[in-house]
């Protein structure tokens, strides 16, 4: 039976407790401690230098850009940022770990006690972070029968490790945490967060306990969850595995397990050195990393408004939760929306009152067109000021919604200003009764049967007359005004 089918029932009695350790690549162009490039997909061992190769005599010097990106993440998660944090060495032997140790941070990490603003569906939730620390990536080994091949292109790529408190309570929450972190790091320009390229990787610490119990159960560490699709699956699978063990009177072993996406199962990671001892100690090659005023100022200067507060504001503007979530899904989209809203006053509209209309036009009409053309919002040929202009023309009564679609299409294709299109094509809608009444009078004379039908209760006949007037005016009649006039005219004398 699949996990999905049994889990809801099991969860009535059991509560999962999940903590995540997420590695995010910092988007610097050069490596953490040397000047080789961080490019993806290059030929094997083409991005190395004596330091990356762990050669004798080489020394690490940390990347300023990487430090600033990490600090930006710290600020964006309201973390306590340590003025002097320390690099430490974590020792273990692996053929793609060139120095026999990884440079990381242990006792004195860059960030502690932050929170990540997580969007659980359309609900904001603050998930506590234990720490965010700096480290370097290892290389890549690929296995071919009796030998393994080592490629060190990734070795030394700068990472942050984000460690949550154990306070996620379902795989969905864990997945939502991942999505929120992914959104944030992209938002801040820290990383593309591309899991396929290993720019974001997730390990999960999972335990279960009976509901109502305070004590945490024995946890396992689930590694190798390297795709968004796997996060939920892997964790649900582990939750069910643990509950089954406990329900049959067995014990959960404190172990590290490896998620195998193809098998849709996890397996214990068997290692010769059952209890490794990483022998952390402060790296004597690296004095403390100082985050001083000037660096903070540089970071703060480039820090944008974060997605969480924007979501909140959009909701206050009457935008639905789903739409607000979509709007903050990407910084470029949200920035476009903000720019359109900011332009509303200049087209005579109240920003707050018409935000919803702007949102609808953006999410349906513009994204529809961009989608059709395979373009991103950043590549939009239709600027945010034009979107504001269209909404202004509609809300100000200058054009109808139907005409607006045509105006949009033309503006999108040609890049012309919507107002200019309206003027050039004489698309201003007819709202003046004096212009519409003669047309209505003629219709009444020409269509006695239809009037009869309407007066006998066939409401649909109203539409018939609306259509006739629209045809006569090239669709420019103001629908609201026209409706009112027709109703009055059709009342029996």
């Amino acid at each position, binding site marked *: 039976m699949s996990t999905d089918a049994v889990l809801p029932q099991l969860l009535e009695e059991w509560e999962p407790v999940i903590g995540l350790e997420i590695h995010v690549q910092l988007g610097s162009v*050069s490596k953490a401690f040397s000047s080789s490039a961080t490019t993806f997909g290059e030929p094997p*061992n083409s991005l190395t*230098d004596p330091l990356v190769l762990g050669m004798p005599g080489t020394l690490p010097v940390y990347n*300023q850009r990487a430090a600033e990106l990490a600090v930006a993440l710290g600020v964006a998660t309201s973390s306590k940022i340590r003025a002097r944090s320390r690099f430490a060495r974590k020792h273990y032997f692996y053929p793609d770990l060139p120095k026999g140790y990884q440079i990381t941070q242990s006792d004195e990490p860059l960030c502690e006690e932050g929170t990540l603003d997580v969007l659980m569906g359309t609900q904001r939730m603050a998930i506590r972070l234990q720490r965010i620390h700096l480290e370097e990536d290892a290389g890549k080994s690929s296995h071919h029968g009796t*030998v*393994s091949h080592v490629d*060190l292109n990734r070795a030394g790529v700068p990472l942050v490790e984000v460690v949550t408190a154990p306070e996620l309570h379902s795989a969905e929450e864990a997945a939502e945490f991942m999505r929120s972190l992914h959104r944030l790091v992209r938002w801040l320009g820290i990383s593309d967060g591309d899991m396929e390229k290993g720019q974001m990787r997730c390990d999960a610490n999972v335990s279960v306990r009976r509901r109502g119990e305070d004590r945490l159960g024995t946890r396992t560490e689930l590694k190798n969850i390297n795709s968004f699709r796997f996060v939920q699956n892997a964790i649900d699978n582990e939750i069910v595995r643990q509950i089954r063990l406990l329900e049959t009177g067995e014990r959960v072993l404190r172990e590290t397990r490896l998620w195998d996406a193809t098998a849709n199962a996890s397996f214990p*990671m068997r290692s010769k050195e059952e209890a490794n001892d990483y022998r952390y100690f402060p790296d004597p090659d690296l004095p403390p*990393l*100082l985050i001083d005023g000037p660096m903070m100022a540089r970071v703060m200067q480039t820090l944008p408004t974060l997605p969480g507060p924007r979501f909140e504001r959009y909701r206050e503007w009457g935008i639905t939760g789903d739409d607000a979530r979509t709007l903050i899904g990407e910084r470029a989209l949200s920035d476009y929306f903000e720019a359109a809203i900011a332009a509303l006053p200049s087209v005579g509209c109240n920003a707050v009152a018409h935000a919803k209309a702007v949102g609808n036009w953006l999410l349906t009409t513009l994204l529809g067109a961009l989608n059709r053309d395979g373009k991103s919002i950043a590549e939009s040929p239709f600027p945010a000021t034009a979107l504001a202009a269209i909404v202004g023309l509609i809300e100000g009564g200058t054009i109808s919604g139907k005409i607006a679609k045509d105006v949009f299409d033309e503006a999108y294709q040609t890049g012309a200003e919507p107002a200019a299109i309206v003027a050039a094509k004489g698309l201003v809608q007819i709202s003046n009764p004096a212009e519409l009444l003669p047309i209505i009078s003629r219709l009444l004379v020409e269509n006695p049967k239809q009037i009869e039908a309407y007066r006998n209760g066939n409401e649909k006949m109203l539409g018939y007359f609306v259509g006739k007037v629209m045809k006569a005016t090239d669709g420019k009649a103001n629908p609201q005004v026209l409706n009112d006039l027709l109703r009055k005219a059709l009342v029996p004398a």
Partner: protein
Amino acid sequence: MAEIGLQEVTELAMLARLRLSTDETETMRRELQQILTAMDALAAVPTEGVAAMTHAVPMDLRLRPDAVMPSLTPAEALAAAPATAGDHFVVPAAIGPHE
């Protein structure tokens, strides 16, 4: 006084990836014991509130600008390697994943 046993020497050798013969293990145990006994002098020193020193000269980390410089070519990177295949380093099969 710190006592060091054969089992512990074996564990240390394992951690350090040093293969020691039985004889070497015993010699190593004896020598480590002698050295560790000399270290006992440290234990007697009151160090409450004394800062742990990594560098005698206080300094803060100098950072480097995020600039790419030419890498070694794969041939240069592999030039000193004991075993290679194509542009890869080669080792006996590494079973098991990363830490």
